[in-house]
């Protein structure tokens, strides 16, 4: 079922680590992320986030390696968006540490993290409604990881190239608010891509799209990944991720309940339970 693996494959093919076997100690003292054969690009270590009495994310740890295309799934309220907010600096973890390319980023402001090369899309798209499509994307090209070396004029040129890539070239001058839902998702992606991210976090970009549109967008994400960008795809719907990711992480109630290749992970009782309920999981067990 997983026919196409990205050309720039994971340095750890068949990466398979389970939640009960942390591969590396939590090095809180040292200046670098936990050691592996290859440095992880992103390293989330024992991260907990509480909002008042609610625990949104609980002692969560995982790594993303350069070039990987990883999925993050979980039912509604599992803490997926909170996790993205923690990585991008919008929220700060209550406990734990997040490392990116050897730097601890969990106390940096969002704009610093953005300039370091982490770009995200928002689940509820946030176009700059009164600006043109081109200007929306140009702002990404101006202030993202590649922004410092560009003038405003060069950023507009770069934005035109990115719009070509996502298939919005014909709509450059349209106000962003005039776009239909599918194109707004593309715009959201284009804004993130224009930042020239090293790590791209996609927060439910597929939600609300028609199946045909989903496939086009997924093909685009795969192409971006093939060009060397590490991608984390956050989805509520498992189906979207199954075909493209070599590895998925499953969250439920803020905890990691499974991690591994999608085909294997989806057979685990804990995952089935989280998605379909306890009774359904038990029936499955009995049937087997």
């Amino acid at each position, binding site marked *: 079922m997983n026919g196409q693996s990205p050309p720039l494959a994971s340095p750890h093919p068949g990466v398979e680590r389970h939640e009960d076997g942390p591969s590396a100690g939590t090095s809180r003292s040292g200046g670098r992320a936990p050691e592996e054969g290859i440095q992880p690009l992103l390293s989330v270590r024992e991260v907990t986030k509480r909002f008042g009495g609610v625990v949104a994310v609980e002692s969560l740890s995982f790594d993303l390696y350069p070039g990987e295309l990883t999925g993050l799934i979980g039912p509604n309220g599992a803490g997926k968006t909170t996790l993205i907010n923690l990585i991008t*600096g919008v929220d700060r973890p209550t406990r734990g540490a997040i490392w990116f390319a050897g730097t601890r980023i969990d106390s940096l402001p*969002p*704009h610093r993290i953005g300039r370091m090369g982490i770009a*995200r899309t*928002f689940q509820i798209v946030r*176009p700059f409604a009164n600006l043109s499509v081109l200007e929306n994307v140009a*702002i*990404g090209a101006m*202030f993202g990881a590649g922004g410092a070396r560009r*003038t405003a004029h060069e950023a507009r040129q770069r934005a035109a190239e990115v719009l070509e890539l996502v298939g919005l070239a014909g709509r450059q001058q349209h106000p962003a608010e005039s776009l239909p839902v599918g194109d707004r998702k593309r715009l959201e992606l284009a804004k993130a891509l224009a930042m020239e991210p090293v790590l791209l976090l996609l927060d439910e970009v597929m939600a609300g799209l028609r199946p045909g549109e989903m496939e086009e967008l997924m093909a685009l994400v795969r192409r971006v990944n093939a060009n060397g960008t590490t991608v984390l795809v956050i989805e509520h719907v498992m189906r979207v991720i199954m075909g493209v990711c070599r590895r998925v992480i499953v969250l439920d109630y803020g905890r990691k309940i499974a991690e591994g290749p999608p085909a294997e992970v989806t057979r685990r009782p804990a995952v089935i339970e989280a998605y379909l309920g306890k009774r359904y999981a038990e029936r499955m067990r009995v049937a087997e």
Partner: protein
Amino acid sequence: MNLAILIAGTVLAGIAARPQVRAAARRFAAGALLALLLAAPIFSPAPAVLFDALTAMCAAYGWNVIGGYTGYASFGNVAYLGLGAFVAAGFMSRQPGHPHLPWYAGIPLSIVIVSLVAGVIGLAVLRLRGHYFSIATLGVAVAMPEIINWDLVFGPRGFIPNFFGGGRPLNFPLADDLHLFGMELSADRYFFYYLGLLTALIGWGLTALLSRSKFGYSLVAIRENEEAAEVMGINTTLAKSAAYMLSAALAALGGSVLGYRLTNMTTEAEALFSTANNLQMIIICLIGGAGTLWGPWIGAFVLYALQEAVRVTASSSTFLQWQAVIFAMLIIIVVLFLPRGVMQFVARREGFSWQMLARNLVAERV
């Protein structure tokens, strides 16, 4: 005559701002506008009206930076307008204890000091958004005249004794009339008018630079969605502070030139810090089109043209009352039917139509 100049200026600015007009024609219109304004004091019976319009425009360009481009509706910029006038007077006054600097040193120095004050105040008020920001800035506007009268700091035995008068009157020095080739060029007619024109051109010029710069884009991104802007790599705290300081600097520029002409700060303090002054710069931006390069220009000329029209038709005793009524009605009409100001006709392909006004009325407001 002033009415004719203001109407002609509005039309020329409209042409210069219209994107579908050829670039050469737009430049020509802008050139003609400049020529008209340079020549205006020669044939205008009362250039003071134009002077008022131009200094108000400068302050409006200041409001446009924070309220228009950045989307932070400040109701306190009059604090910086008044403070600018007082600080400039403090530096320029010929009274003992003052450094009596010339205007070209005193006014820039005042702008720098006001910007720094705004930077400090900005640290506090820019943490707020929306209505909360507006109300906090309104507090700044109310507090500023009291601070200037603060005896502990500026009184006879304060840290900076008598800088703002401190019981004694504070005056700008009188500007001398110029004698050139046997002609007597009165300061009121020429010197102050051109100083006023200079402030408007500075406001326009800085906005032109801003609207094409990365800084300008970062402000617009903050207006459209601050959280998304921050995640996209914009240091929103820094950008907002810089915008607020620039906004205050232009208010101080307009205010100090305005104050220089009014001369006596002690008697004019109330007028400088007045609510009318505060609202005027906001109304100008709303009429013309907030967050645009030509909006404040068009807005200032339209507003002063309307005032002139009222003054011509009404007797002077009823003028002040009528002025308030017109201001109020104008705000209501513009906010309801023209949220993007006159620039909506200027910038779009469509001309005026009643349907457009109706659409605006029911349109979703941000």
